[in-house]
């Protein structure tokens, strides 16, 4: 059997390299990447049932509202919670508390939080430290439970 001509091998190699690039482009289009969502737009609520999932939905929704008010992302706001970000502690406290209060009201309307508990949760949100609110699912659970 004759060996393939070297020029044919070279052309085949060039075609294979081009095909590799084409395959990468196709995979690149279909590959799922993490996107930073616009906090002002409605997003799919945190999934799950029970108290923990409810608390997460309220807090994440509250953070979205706060981030929207600051014209930033929810992620950027979370990274600023320790006071090392671009906003001072007072600003963060005001917008996060406001966002959480709105989220509690929304959760009450949706039936995510029993209507009777809404005033109690609101009072808690109005007075508890911000970091404790954002991190402190246990205390909220105690309150709701």
């Amino acid at each position, binding site marked *: 059997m004759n060996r393939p001509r*070297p020029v044919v091998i070279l052309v085949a*190699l*060039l075609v294979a390299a081009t095909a*590799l*690039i084409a395959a990468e*482009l196709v995979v690149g289009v279909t590959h799922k*990447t993490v996107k930073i969502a616009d906090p002002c737009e409605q997003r799919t609520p945190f999934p799950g049932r029970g108290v923990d999932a409810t608390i997460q939905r309220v807090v994440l929704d509250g953070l979205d509202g706060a981030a929207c008010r600051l014209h930033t992302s929810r992620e950027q706001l*979370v990274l600023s919670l320790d006071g090392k970000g671009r906003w001072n502690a007072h600003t963060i406290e005001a917008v996060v508390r406001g966002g959480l209060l709105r989220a509690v009201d929304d959760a009450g309307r949706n039936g995510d939080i029993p209507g009777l508990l809404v005033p109690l949760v609101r009072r808690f949100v109005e007075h508890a430290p911000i970091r404790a609110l954002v*991190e402190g699912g*246990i205390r909220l659970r105690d309150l709701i439970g």
Partner: protein
Amino acid sequence: MPPNRTPRWAVALVVAGVAVAFADSSIVVLALPDLYTRFHTTITGVSWVLTAYNLAVAVTALALVVFVHRMRGATLFAVGLLLFAGASVACSAATSAAFLISARCVQGAGAALLLAASLPVLTALTGSTLRGATIWTLAGTFGAALGPALGGVLTQAFGWRAIFVVQAPLALLGLFAAIAVRDVPAADETVAPARAQRIPPNVCIGLLFGALVGVLFLSVLLIVTVWGYSPIGGAAIVSVLPAATLAARPVERRLPPSAAAYGGAALLGLGLIALALLPYAGVGFTIGALTACGIGLGLSIPVLSHAALDLGADLSRSGALTIAVRHVGLVLALASIAPLLAAEVSPAGDKAELRATAVLLDAPVSLSTKIPVALDARTEFARAQTGEIPNLARPFDAHGAKHDPTLARVRDTLVDAIKDTITRAFRSSFLLCASFAAAALGVAFLFRRRGIVA
């Protein structure tokens, strides 16, 4: 010395010396994280361990162009070997980054001497200028491709110092080859050399070595520092490069020289574009891209090297010139890519930090875990801003990821998101390297009527 009395062991020793000296351009790439940790320096500081060697080879080889033909090849080869071996020992004993970088400069100077002198030595050993130049070219091409893989294996098995410890005896063994040709007089290179026709192939070689920065440095950096592979894991991946370079040899021998040069440069460029367009931090596409680069290297460099070498009256000087050009190409490409990469990686780090936080906030773990982990992860990212290597597993492990499979899964998803983001930050640098290969292709095409490689 007639060809039928060629002492093969002596040729093998010279080949080993040439391959190691070329491999040294990139041999420490996989050891950079270890060197970084050992010397508590910055990423920029540790990168000088690479640059210093290539710069020293380039400067010394350029100086050699002036007077190398007046010296006895065997003597210069022996001096180069001794300098290289001594500096290798000094590198292996380095206790500070500054000392290591200084020793690398001396090692580079020794490498330039031994590389320039090895051409007339191989000619004397084989009894044929053409055969000597062919062996020299192949040893250099394979050595350049072998560097990262060899360094990775040695680093993993014995630590970074082993890279230099191994080189010293290899270099000293080459002294026996120098003794075997000690009676050969200096080459008669008194005829005015025809340098003008050597310029286009040398420009092509310089540009292709600039392109090789993407393969020998950027891809290795990506695999080890971004994707987190161990030196031996990284070595296994990049070992496709020398394997492909070697596999290309039978095709290169049968191809018309111009087709090998054009096709090789095009394959190298396409391989670099494939590295630039990696859709995610994965090995599969990377191996394909590195294979294309290795074949491109194996096809183009040997024929261009032959065109750059004057096999007649100007062998030593043309050899020194092409050594200098290769390393000038590496250094200039490193100098242009480093700021580009730094400019891209920094904003990519910010983007990766936000994406990592997004993964965390959407993860099925409690708020009392995800918020502190997000803030601790930011502290790790801040380390990268000051030139340190962040350890993103640390905040997760501190919050129980070692025993909590859900948190461990979140950690893995987050790390993948970060790797994907930083991998894309290498895109412009790979494309710049691909443009060097395209420029080499353009130069070869422009000068085709002057028979650049025919």
